[in-house]
């Protein structure tokens, strides 16, 4: 029986690692991976609270959230591939325009 606060601390740590990665990395793929880390920390919070309130609504919401994260990752990687095909670079700090 693990206390609830351990789950919350782990989720806060995961979210902080993801936030640090988003703020410091320049590579687009790494940034998308860190965004997925933050989404999964939010899902961990949802499942922990769902388990500790003895209901199942949080787990259903976590399933929806995971599906949305999958869709978002697919579109994000597709956009990165299009950017790489147009500009031959993935470094997101060097992309200074949205021009064709």
């Amino acid at each position: 029986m693990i206390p609830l606060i351990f789950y919350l601390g782990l989720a806060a740590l995961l979210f902080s690692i993801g936030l640090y990665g988003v703020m410091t990395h320049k590579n687009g793929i790494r940034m998308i991976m860190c965004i997925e880390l933050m989404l999964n920390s939010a899902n961990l919070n949802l499942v922990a609270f769902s388990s500790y309130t003895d209901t199942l609504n949080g787990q259903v919401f976590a399933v929806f959230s995971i599906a949305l994260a999958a869709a978002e990752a697919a579109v994000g990687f597709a956009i990165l591939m299009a950017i790489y095909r147009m500009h031959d670079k993935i470094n997101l700090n060097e992309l200074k325009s949205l021009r064709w």
Partner: protein
Amino acid sequence: MRINRPLAFLVVLLFTAIVVIGAFGTSWNTVSELPQSPADQSNIEGIGMLIFTQYVAPFEVLSIVLLASLIGAIYLAKGEGNR
């Protein structure tokens, strides 16, 4: 555009401190003891019942969203022409 790593670390540390203090300083009114006999309740069965009774509209909307994202990802990744 340079990346200021110590500033980012400071911001993340501040965020972590705020979240952890908020989480530890709140008295969550949850159940203190989980039911220790998981044999009498199936999680997957309950989630399936809940998805197809209470959350059926978000399920349908999510199916449309997944289909749209799949089509859009294929369209973006395929490129312009050159079949």
